[in-house]
């Protein structure tokens, strides 16, 4: 600050212009932010918009932005997707439950009372994520065939659980590490056994983290296509396969496809929007708090 006394007006002028600059800066950032956000969102917006068009309005040049919306394509989608959405729901929820059953104790054994080689174990889990599952798809098919699991929902549950398990273990472990050591010691001094320690000290703290881990597993299982495409036909075909079947060999199909794509994507988009805050942590496998 200057020591020379300044008149009132002299101080006011630069302050007002700085404020003006800040205001226009804010307006600039706001405009830029919205342009980028909406620009990125356009394909999703277009998908939803097209889903409400009658088929004849979906494939025109120039594209139509005003049309009389119809639910007819949605109705068609809803009437056809029954078994697919059921399979998807069972595979997604089933595999996520299996993941939690396996990941919770494992994370505990890697965080709270760690096994000697916890570091190696963690690396083993994550290394399975790097093996390209596509490389084993042929033998997987043969194994599934011989174990009578081909085209069964159980197969998808088993494979999706294996696919999401490393992620869940890493993530839940990172939440368990946040349980303060003092609390564990206090419980032990009180004479609490392992079980009481888990139920009374650890679970209340990690439950929100477990929920967000489960949501991440749900997202990946729901969206999976490769395994479903190769290992299921009808008895276990999932929503991504319903989508593919909504593209016919001939005729107009764009509105129908858009409606199917919208219905297939909406559950996970909503889950993701709700879980936004924990998304980062889940996607970074717990590296980022």
């Amino acid at each position, binding site marked *: 600050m200057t020591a020379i006394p300044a008149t009132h007006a002299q101080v006011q002028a630069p302050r007002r212009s700085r404020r003006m600059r800040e205001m226009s800066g804010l307006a600039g*950032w706001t405009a830029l*932010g919205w342009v*980028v956000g909406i620009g*990125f969102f356009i*394909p*999703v917006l*277009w*998908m939803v918009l097209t889903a409400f068009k009658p088929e004849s309005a*979906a*494939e025109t*040049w*120039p*594209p139509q932005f005003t049309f009389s919306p119809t639910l007819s394509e949605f109705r068609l989608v809803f009437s056809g997707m029954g078994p697919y959405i059921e399979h998807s729901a069972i595979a997604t929820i089933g595999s996520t439950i299996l993941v939690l*059953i*396996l990941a919770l*104790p494992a994370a505990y*054994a890697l*965080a709270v*009372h*760690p096994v*000697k080689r916890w*570091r190696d*174990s963690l690396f083993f889990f*994550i290394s399975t994520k*790097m*093996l*390209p599952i*596509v*490389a*084993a798809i*042929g*033998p*997987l098919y*043969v194994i599934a065939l011989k174990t009578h699991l081909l085209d069964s929902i159980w197969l998808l549950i088993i494979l999706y659980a*294996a696919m999401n*398990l490393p992620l869940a273990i890493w993530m839940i472990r990172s939440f368990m*590490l946040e*349980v303060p*050591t003092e609390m*564990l010691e206090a419980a032990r001094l009180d004479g609490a056994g392992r079980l009481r320690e888990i139920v009374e000290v650890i679970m209340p703290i990690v439950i929100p983290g477990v929920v967000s881990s489960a949501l991440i597993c749900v997202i990946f299982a*729901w969206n999976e*296509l*490769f395994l479903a495409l*190769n290992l299921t036909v009808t008895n276990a075909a999932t929503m991504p396969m319903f*989508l593919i079947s909504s*593209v016919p060999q001939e005729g107009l*199909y*764009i509105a129908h*496809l*858009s409606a199917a*794509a919208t219905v297939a*994507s909406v559950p996970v988009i909503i889950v993701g*929007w709700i879980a*936004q805050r924990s998304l*980062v942590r889940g996607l*970074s*496998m717990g*590296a*980022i*708090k």
Partner: protein
Amino acid sequence: MAVLQDVSAPPAAGLRPRGVGRRERWQRRLPLLPALIYTIVVTQIPFLVTLWYSFQNYFWNQPGGATWAGVSNYEQVFKDPNFRSALVRSVTMTVIAVIVAMFLGVLFAMLLDRKFPGRGVVRTLIITPFLIMPAAAALVWAGPMLDPNFGLLNWLLEPFGVHHVAWLTTHAYGSVIVVMIWEWTPFMTLIVLAGLQGQAADILEAAKVDGAGAWATFRELTLPHLRPYIELGILLGSIYLVNVFDQVRLMTNGGPGTSTTTLPFYLYQQLDYAFNVGGTAAAGVVTVVLTIIVASFALRLFARVFQFEEAK
């Protein structure tokens, strides 16, 4: 606050795994075993079977089952120019997509790090492409967005002199990469944003007081701070993107010709169209060996990025 886990002090002596009794050791090990055994059985056995079939002559559509083939499947794989080009294409597509997505991710994150009205909504809009079902995204891009006759992109680009370009035939490679980038930029944005928000505000303030320009501050302070976050994003993005299949299968089906045939799609084709279990297995084994080489570097990077927090 968003922070990468720090290396913490060694755990309290009483909690250490060392010096614990046999019974105690098994008590510790027991909860880990189900997950460990499950993962070994489900993820490792298929690869052992793959190894076995890679030495077998086995086609779906021919009766008689598998017969010993020696290394002939491997000879085929190394002789097949399509395998090599698919391998190279997988690598180049992944590298381009990851780098561009990360570049955009840093820009978007810088944008979202500022306070402006509706920031939460804009963030929500930006992460949506990552949440949308990849199969849905691929089909929507292939149809309503990129169609030469009625696609929205051609309409948006018409003022710039673009007329009814058939993107998926003339620019198939670029189109698939654009969709990969579109889907993975949100992921990079979120990770970098977490990094930016973990940056100490007083250091930035001090730099401003010292008269450092915006670019200098970014280069000298922000970028080094973001480095582990960027490494993490690149690492995780690569793990997922190298396996990209949905977009290729649903947008271009590997074509035109083989111009967008990535390794996963190549393997799928070998199996689904050529019924060649043995050959696919051999190609799979080669893929796995190459992956292990790359992954061993990746794992080292992982250890550095995560800077393991000690267990309790």
